[in-house]
């Protein structure tokens, strides 16, 4: 703006007002306006000085000289500004290029890092869907994740060698199933199953080799009859001698807190209740906890749990305590007998393990079946599922209950000839009546 303004003024005065002839005016413009360095500007000023002879008054000459000087100064300043902005532009451009180069370098390093990282990705064990592949996959799953190798003193490597020799490439589906199931049975664990669409591999010796001590027909005909109530999977009835009786055959049947309230309220006037969990093979631990919480008035340490922390047979975490909090709803305050037999397994075993700690509760019957390992699942390349004990649990004294829990009162007599009475229920009734 300053350059333009001074140029306009100069152009005006170099017209005719100062009486400068047109040739001289053009020469003046050529010197002053078109030349940009200091040397030629100085020449222009000198030329103007000589132009004093061209009938210019001193005042006009002084004005013209001032105007030319202003213009030259403005032009010089503008030139400096242009140079400065040019330098700034170049500096910024240089910075931008440096930044781009740095970014390119960084991105290259990142890409190379990715290449390095991806070369160390996790490897997935790929077992083929062949008899050999399925055998090896099953053995490895159990080797890394089964939790009772040391407790049961099982030499799993020896078992591998023994059964591996029996694997044939041309085994059919049934032969493979039988072989794998036989290998799993070496663990003697009711929580270990091989689950296929055509059969369930299992180990049931924990109850098959013992007296059943339970007859559903006697129970229905001589105790429950036809007028019993059912709620939350529990069959319950007030027996003739004012003893409440609850049969709960499966901890998978969801327990409703409201149903429990009704059941326990109904037995409020009884002298005691019998909770019969014989032949209850387990289910959900949450149901066992909910049921047991109705029989304690204080927070109670009921056991411990641990888990595997690695693939080694003895890689376990520290024992973590399990507490049972008393229910905030109806709690039973009279004597209770829990009837057990060898078919009490898993969550039922856990229920019995908790109940035996409560002062008003007595465990009667036979030893439970055990099953203290919380089971987890996996699968083989051919799609067969496998279930196994993964997290061992212990009682409140940190003792394993995998092999079962002894009752407080063992009942050994089960007279098969007398089919009109259940000796376990009769023993429980007598016990409750005496304790009353």
């Amino acid at each position, binding site marked *: 703006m300053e350059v333009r303004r001074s140029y306009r003024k100069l152009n005006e005065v170099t017209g005719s007002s100062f009486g400068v002839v047109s040739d001289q005016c053009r020469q003046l413009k050529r010197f002053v306006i078109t030349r940009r360095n200091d040397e030629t500007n100085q020449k222009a000023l000198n030329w103007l000085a000589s132009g004093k002879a061209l009938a210019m008054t001193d005042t006009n000459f002084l004005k013209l000289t001032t105007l030319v000087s202003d213009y030259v100064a403005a032009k010089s300043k503008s030139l400096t500004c242009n140079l400065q902005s040019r330098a700034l532009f170049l500096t910024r451009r240089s910075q931008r290029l440096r930044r*781009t180069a740095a970014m390119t370098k960084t991105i290259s390093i*990142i890409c190379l890092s990715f290449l390095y990282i991806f070369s160390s990705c996790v490897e997935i064990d790929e077992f083929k869907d062949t008899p050999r592949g399925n055998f090896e996959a099953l053995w490895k799953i159990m080797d890394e994740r089964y939790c009772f190798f040391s407790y049961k003193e099982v030499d799993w490597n020896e078992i591998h060698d023994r059964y591996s020799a029996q694997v044939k490439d041309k085994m059919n589906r049934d032969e493979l199933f039988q072989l794998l199931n036989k290998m799993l049975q070496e663990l003697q664990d009711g929580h270990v199953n091989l689950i296929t669409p055509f059969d369930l591999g299992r180990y049931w010796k924990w109850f098959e080799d013992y007296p059943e001590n339970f007859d559903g027909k006697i129970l229905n005909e001589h105790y429950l009859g036809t007028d019993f109530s059912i709620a939350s999977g529990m069959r319950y009835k007030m027996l003739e001698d004012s003893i409440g009786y609850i049969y709960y055959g499966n901890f998978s049947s969801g327990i409703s807190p409201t149903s429990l309230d009704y059941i326990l309220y109904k037995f409020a006037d009884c002298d005691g209740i019998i909770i019969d969990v014989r032949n209850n093979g387990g289910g959900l631990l949450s149901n066992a906890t909910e049921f047991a919480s109705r029989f304690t008035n204080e927070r109670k340490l009921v056991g411990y749990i641990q*888990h595997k922390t690695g693939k080694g047979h003895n890689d376990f975490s520290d024992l973590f305590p399990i507490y049972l909090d008393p229910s905030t709803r109806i709690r039973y305050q009279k004597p209770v007998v829990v009837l057990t037999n060898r078919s009490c397994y898993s969550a039922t075993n856990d229920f019995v393990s908790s109940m035996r700690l409560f002062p008003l509760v007595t465990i009667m019957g036979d030893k439970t079946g055990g099953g203290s390992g919380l089971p987890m699942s996996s699968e083989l390349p051919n799609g067969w599922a496998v279930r196994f004990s993964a997290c061992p649990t212990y009682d409140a004294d940190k003792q394993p209950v995998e092999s079962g829990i002894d009752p407080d009162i063992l009942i050994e007599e089960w007279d098969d000839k007398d089919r009109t009475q259940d000796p376990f229920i009769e023993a429980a009734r007598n016990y409750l009546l005496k304790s009353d």
Partner: protein
Amino acid sequence: MQKYLAFLILSCFTLFPCFSQEDKPLRLNYRSSMLGLGQASVYDSYLSPLNYSGNSYSFMEERISMTGLSNGNIAVQQLFYLDYYSTLNPPGNAIQYAGFLEYSPGLFYRLAPLPDLKVFAGSQINALAGFVYNPRNSNNPATAKAHLNLTLSAAASYDFRIKSQPFRLRYQISSPFVGAMFSQNFGQSFYEISIGNNENLVHFASYHNQIILRNNLSLEIPFNFMTIRLMYANSFYETRVNYINTRIYNNSFMIGFSREFFTIPGKKQVKGNFKRVFE
């Protein structure tokens, strides 16, 4: 005097936005919403030693705008992903589901090495919550996935024309490099966690135990009334914690719309002086 000062202060507050709006260009927000379909692979050794594969369904929402930081060269981006996978094991007799919710806000420095090329580099906070669920399993039916990471990310945008039709090609790569993640222990059940054993569940996460990568390559085709965005999205998620290995990857083709908009308070006339993210 007090009245005068109050008037002066009020005037400053009242007039300042007007001046700033007139002097500075209005920053446009870029927003894109996309739906996708693809193929996913899910491997989680806690649930199964087999690699499950199947369909993936994805949703992505992206928002970017320039900020006034660093001479207006800083862009802020928000990415929101919702992924759902339904997969089968190799024999085809067991199903496994997975779902992930992911949010990544981040700041990017923008460079323009060429008139039509914009390069972005920056960092994001990457928050993820998800699950892998195998209904067939007993006490290990699911694994929970969660992490909070700091992510390195780079992006590039290139504008070009074929005949008279303009196109914009965009690519973005992101990978978390440090953070924290949740993982249950090797043989730990969620029952044990539920009764209070929270030990060793949160882990420091970096490339030694976590590799997560997202690649998005998209082509935007502007029309008179909308801009269609087509995208190939690739995600890779791998963790190695407590002897539990997880590898999940997904390749999706996504389609959606993108648009640029501005928000100003009140009814103000807006002149055509805009600052766009990719221009």
